């Protein structure tokens, strides 16, 4: 019936399987000692953070810190944080948060308020960039502290503009001239920006809206998304692709890296991107090294150049077992030298205003000399726990407008009514800034 060889195979397979099963079912080693866990990004951030943590442990020998790498992609990290914090897990002590998460985590009582600690520790909040502090507060209380900042910048081909004897682009009208530059020098793309249906598109579109003097909420907290000025701005943005030939249709599928790669290969005249691209574009393998410059974003006739404020904050888990030790870690990570080194090594710009006058940093990032105001005046997205709803509505309608599934008028009108419905249903009045 069953051959001996076949029987032997069966037995071997079962033995191997049993070994695997037992190995798999082994329990984890128990944890001992006073230890903190810092959750942050993966990749280059991780290596750098581990170096910093070694230094911290040298200064505080009785506190052990482990670094927990989480996906750098915002939505995956958000997934993890929500999973952990909704089950009140004490396993993470200090969290690296995206700036738009602070209000929602604070409202859910997942973050420890830091006002008392900051006051006692003598931490001066004056030096922090105003938009960074704004993002770290919710209902007047401090729930996090900014760790690094991001703001939208305009990268342009200095060599081409110089050859064409044109000044760097400043206004929306200058954007339209990009087509001539593109055709004159034979480049496939004119102005690249992030237009895929994700959060990055919301940042770009908001930058256009703000730079033309428009807004989503006015200073009193009223919803003013559907204004004639915003409609004009959105139309301008959409026309860049379909009428003016300034941006290719491909931008509707682009995220940050797609734009950077195309610009780096020399295929584009202009690019809107975050500061991270700067050191990468100056590497030897980049075809535009030393050929490009950085200027503030273009603005419309009704406004000033305004970048979208992004970046990360440090917060302490409300369920942490060691809040005092966690605060020490936060203070350490936020001290001046560490922030400066982080900028120098990782290219993640610091949240302290005074560091923008630092000579070392200005040498490494020359654009900071002229663009300091961009960061000081960068504008955060609406600071509310409802931002995920609002951002989602904006994302959908901006994307539909950009891919001509809706006209700009329809997009803003529907966006406004949907946001109003969300606020009416879920909101607390007077809470949005």
């Amino acid at each position: 019936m069953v051959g001996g060889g076949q029987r032997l195979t069966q037995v071997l397979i079962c033995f191997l399987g049993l070994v695997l099963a037992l190995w798999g079912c082994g329990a984890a080693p128990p944890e001992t000692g006073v230890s903190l866990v810092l959750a942050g990004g993966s990749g280059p951030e991780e290596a750098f953070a581990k170096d910093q943590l070694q230094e911290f442990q040298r200064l505080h020998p009785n506190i052990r810190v482990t670094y927990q790498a989480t996906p750098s992609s915002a939505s995956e990290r958000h997934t993890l944080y929500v999973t952990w914090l909704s089950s009140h897990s004490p396993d993470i002590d200090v969290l690296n948060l995206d700036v738009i998460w602070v209000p929602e985590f604070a409202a859910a009582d997942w973050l420890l308020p830091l006002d008392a600690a900051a006051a006692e520790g003598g931490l001066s909040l004056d030096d922090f960039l105003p938009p960074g502090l704004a993002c770290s507060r919710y209902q007047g209380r401090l729930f996090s502290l900014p760790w690094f900042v991001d703001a939208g910048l305009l990268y342009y081909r200095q060599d081409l503009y110089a050859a064409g004897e044109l000044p760097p682009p400043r206004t929306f009208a200058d954007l339209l001239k990009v087509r001539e530059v593109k055709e004159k020098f034979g480049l496939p793309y004119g102005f690249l920006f992030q237009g895929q249906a994700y959060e990055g598109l919301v940042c770009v579109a908001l930058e256009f809206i703000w730079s033309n003097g428009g807004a989503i909420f006015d200073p009193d907290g009223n919803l003013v998304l559907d204004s004639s000025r915003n409609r004009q701005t959105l139309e301008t943005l959409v026309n860049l692709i379909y009428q003016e030939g300034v941006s290719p249709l491909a931008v509707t599928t682009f995220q940050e890296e797609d734009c950077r790669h195309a610009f780096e290969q020399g295929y584009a005249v202009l690019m809107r991107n975050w500061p991270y691209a700067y050191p990468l574009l100056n590497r030897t393998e980049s075809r535009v090294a030393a050929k490009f410059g950085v200027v503030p974003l273009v603005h419309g006739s009704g406004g000033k150049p305004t970048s979208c404020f992004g970046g990360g904050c440090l917060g302490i888990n409300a369920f942490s077992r060691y809040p005092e030790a966690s605060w020490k870690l936060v203070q350490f990570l936020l001290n001046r030298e560490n922030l400066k080194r982080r900028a120098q090594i990782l290219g993640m710009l610091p949240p302290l205003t005074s560091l923008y006058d630092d000579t070392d940093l200005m040498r490494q990032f020359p654009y900071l000399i002229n663009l300091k105001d961009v960061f000081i005046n960068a504008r955060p997205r609406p600071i509310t726990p409802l931002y995920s709803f609002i951002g989602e509505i904006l994302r959908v309608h901006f994307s539909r407008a950009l891919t001509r599934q809706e006209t700009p008028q329809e997009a803003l009108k529907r966006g406004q009514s949907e946001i109003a419905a969300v606020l009416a249903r879920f909101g607390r009045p007077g809470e949005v800034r």
Partner: protein
Amino acid sequence: MRRSPFLVYLAKVLFIVLSFFPFFWTFLSSCKPGSQLFQVNPPFWPQPFTWENYRAIFWERSFYLNIINSLVVAGATTFICVVLGSLAAYGLARFRFRGKIAILSFILVVSLFPPVALVSPLFLLFEQARLINTYLALILPYLTFALPLTVWLLTAFFRQIPFELEEAARLDGAGPMRILWEVTLPLAAPGIFTTAILTFIYCWNEFLFALAFTTNDTSRTIPVAIVMFSGYHTVPWGQILAAVTVVTVPVAVLVLVLQRRIISGLTAGAVKG
């Protein structure tokens, strides 16, 4: 069914090209230096050929740990699933008792639920049982989702095996377990190996539970590790493609080795003998 040899040959070539080409392109891309990947009309062959990305993922990222984790989790789950599933399918196919339909339905229904709904409550459960970052935290939910397919497939399979051989063994005085081990399982070998591959690949691929239930670098499995290669804005395509290649090779070997076992069907002798 006879097909003309030419058609078969054509189909063969088509299948091989369609299946292998994306992997081949991935492998070539992973061997390209720096930004050669992103040129608008990239050269087909890397100029020059470089192993830099592979060096990076193994030396700088300890990717081999993730491979081991995936192997252990997938291997253990597969083994347990096949064992438990065979027992269950054998019971369902060969024994008469009440409530079969209810039980089969229950097993099926469990797998129809979207996993994303189960992540939070399971995390809570596992945290309280101190199972987070252990292999068991993954093996248990994987079993829950792999067992239904295993049981259903093997039940259908066992039912189709002719009863005569087992009947003969029973008349010879063998008990049910012995019949299962010596008669039924060898006959059902193609089905067993099929479910083994299906389960292994499911565990190998699974992302959501692996993301939520493993928080340490050292306990992560491959899909999560690959996602973690990305920095704050940067996406290291070269390394990602290298990891994809590395991950595909052992699976390809596994498939190559096992495909004969899957294909080996009933021989005429065993049925008639």
